[in-house]
């Protein structure tokens, strides 16, 4: 008995079949235009430097009193939450009666190198919260923070507990020192000061290569071999290309904010160990007493569930809900399962707390 049930004839046919698919697919690829992304009409309601705060226009009646502001990570573009018509958390939430706003942080350039976490959290994010609250004449709004944007949201809510009514964190790391956190593991022995002092802003390509290196063979090789199977399907190919566009359409990272983020969170793990200060103000998650919904992805290789789950023990609120999604860090926004499971869960949770 051998582990193979492959005859030379079968192997030959498989190779030829692969080439046939490749040839057909490359022809399709050559005929496709650049992909479009972002499906929901939106208007800019606030601009500052490179930041734009958008309100998504809805075809549906708004039934939920408190608007939802989405704070995305700095490391990728925020249109992931509204990628295409059938993969849009925004559109699904609108259909359930929510008013949705989104912060687009923009693409920092060298003039932004000295932006700090304080500038992002107590500056940009804070002013966006104020603008939304003012537009709706409310003292507090709902905040949804995604990944690094979730970390910002936690800090902001801890510092401004009266301005947030309900807080949702999605694939947000809280404990950065769990044993399966490869990204964190790699940063521990790096001299971040030397790194930022040398590079200034951290180049997006470098960040992307780092993410791809977490699963180097799957993401650099197998993914593209597997793509051949769908190369002849125009719709599937467009979906793939849209994702590819999103993955590599990344902003550089403002140097000082990056330095502070890596030092405070990845290296010193200050949410857990304490001692976190933003612009001299102590940040303690125990100050978060508003309702919190914590959503994480079970197969997330960037933010493992073990990094998100400890939030429950660290925050002050008793109204804590946890949602484990079966999928990965990206699938949680764009997979079919995500569309069926995530927006309804968020909507119900918010509606239950919209009094």
């Amino acid at each position, binding site marked *: *008995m*051998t*582990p*193979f*049930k*492959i005859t*030379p004839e079968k*192997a*030959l046919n*498989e*190779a*030829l079949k*692969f*080439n046939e698919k*490749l*040839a057909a*697919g*490359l022809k399709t*690829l*050559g*005929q*496709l*235009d*650049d992909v479009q992304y972002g499906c929901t009409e939106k*208007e800019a*309601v*606030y*601009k500052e430097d490179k930041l734009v705060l958008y309100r998504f226009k809805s075809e549906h009646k708004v039934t939920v009193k408190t608007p939802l502001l989405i704070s995305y990570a700095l490391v990728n573009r925020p249109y992931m939450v509204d990628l295409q018509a059938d993969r849009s958390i925004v559109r699904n939430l609108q259909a359930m009666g929510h008013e949705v706003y989104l912060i687009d942080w923009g693409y920092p350039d*060298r003039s932004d*190198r*000295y932006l700090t976490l304080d*500038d992002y959290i107590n500056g940009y994010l804070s002013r966006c919260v104020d603008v939304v609250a003012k537009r709706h004449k409310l003292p507090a709004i709902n905040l949804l923070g995604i990944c690094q944007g979730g970390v910002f949201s936690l800090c902001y809510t801890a510092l401004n507990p009266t301005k947030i009514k309900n807080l949702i964190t999605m694939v947000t790391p809280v404990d950065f020192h769990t044993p399966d956190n*490869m990204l964190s*593991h*790699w940063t521990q*022995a*790096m*001299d971040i000061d*030397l*790194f930022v*002092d*040398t590079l*200034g802003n951290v*180049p997006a*390509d*470098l960040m992307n*290569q*780092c*993410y791809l*290196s977490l699963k*180097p*063979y*799957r993401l650099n*090789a*197998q993914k*593209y*071999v597997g793509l051949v199977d769908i*190369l002849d399907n125009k719709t599937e190919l467009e979906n793939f*290309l849209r994702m*590819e566009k999103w993955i590599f359409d990344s902003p550089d990272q403002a140097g000082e904010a990056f330095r502070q983020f890596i030092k405070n969170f990845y290296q010193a793990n200050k949410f857990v160990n304490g001692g976190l200060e933003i612009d001299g103000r102590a940040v303690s998650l125990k100050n978060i007493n508003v309702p919190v919904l914590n959503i994480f992805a079970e197969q997330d290789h960037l933010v493992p569930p073990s990094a998100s789950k400890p939030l429950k023990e660290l925050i002050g609120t008793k109204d804590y809900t946890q949602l484990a999604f079966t999928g990965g860090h990206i699938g949680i926004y764009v997979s079919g399962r995500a569309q069926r499971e995530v927006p309804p869960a968020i909507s119900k949770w918010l509606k239950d707390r919209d009094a």
Partner: protein
Amino acid sequence: MQNEFLGAMQSGAEKYLKGLNELSEKFMGANASSNNGPSWSEGMEQFAKLYGGNNNAHEGVFDQVMTQGKGFVSMLEKMYQSASLGNQTGSGIDFAALGQQMLAELAKNNPFSNLPGVQIPGMNFSGLPGMASFGNAGGFGATPNFAMPNFPGFNGGGFDPKTFSAENFLNMPAFGSNRESQERKQALIKHIASYMQAMQAYQGLQMKSIQMAIERMQSKLEERNEHGRQLDSLKAVYDLWIDALEESFAEVALTKDYQLAYGQLVDAQMRVRANVQKQIELATGEIGMPTRSELEGVHQKLAETRRTLRMELSELKAEIAELKANRAAKPVSVKPETVKAAPVKAAVVQAEVVNTEVAKPALAAPKVLKASSSNLLSAAKAVAVKKTAAKSTAPKPTAPTRKK
């Protein structure tokens, strides 16, 4: 037996090329394959030639599909050969031998080394100005010659062990008018040497993980030695191999050794880059060019000024709010006519008008609120006027709550 095997190989190659020709005629109306008996993956080059560059929008994906596709087909070819040999001997695919071949392939062309520039996850600097390649040092190139050391045995692309002696040159005391320059260049060479050592250590761990993957693959294959669990396609073998590679990589990448090697490599790279930048700055500064440090100095001052301005504006707003609250709480004891005549009160009225003008766009803008430096400055001036006037009519406000 050997002749039969070679005959089978020849026959397989012919069939494959015939198939490729048919495909090329079907999809391109041209003869895709070479007549010189190329390897399977080389046969695919024709697709690249005919399709490549047709659509720049997806050039990156095209290149990736072709690169990885060729790697995959190359692996299929090896498995085919192994399967053919196994068919002759009745042993099936010899993955141990195949694994060693793949190891050699991966050593030359693994997913890390496919990335241009420095061969380290997350440390690809090829796209960065001044860091394209540094000759044999890898990943630093296109560095202006004037930034490079000019010592015997060092040519910017590495060290020539026949003529280069670290002891002689790197530790030689510097003196005279070139003292500073020599020290900088000695430092750069030391940094490059450290970088090369760090790279070697890092790549050693990568190779270790690949070696572990071969053993892991053997183990995975043993689990398939039973009916119902056999691998029935080359793609299934490939996927299993990727699993083995990823699992082994993860095992190594989560070790303390890897953490240290990664950190040391990144730090070493940064030291080289920082030193090269320094040399470039000095050289360009000497001919009157603005340097990155100067520009960053301006950016830093600007950021600090904006931060200070915002903080003061915030404090002033807090004071105004408190003043308004105090005024609302106090009964009005002076007739309005009297207020109009009083110069101090007139200043207050004037300040409020300015303030309103500044505040209006922020409050009443129909769609977009725009906060700019000029707005902030106007607002600050307006509030400052108001603050001056207010100080003469109101009690001193309490200190602002926000710490800076």
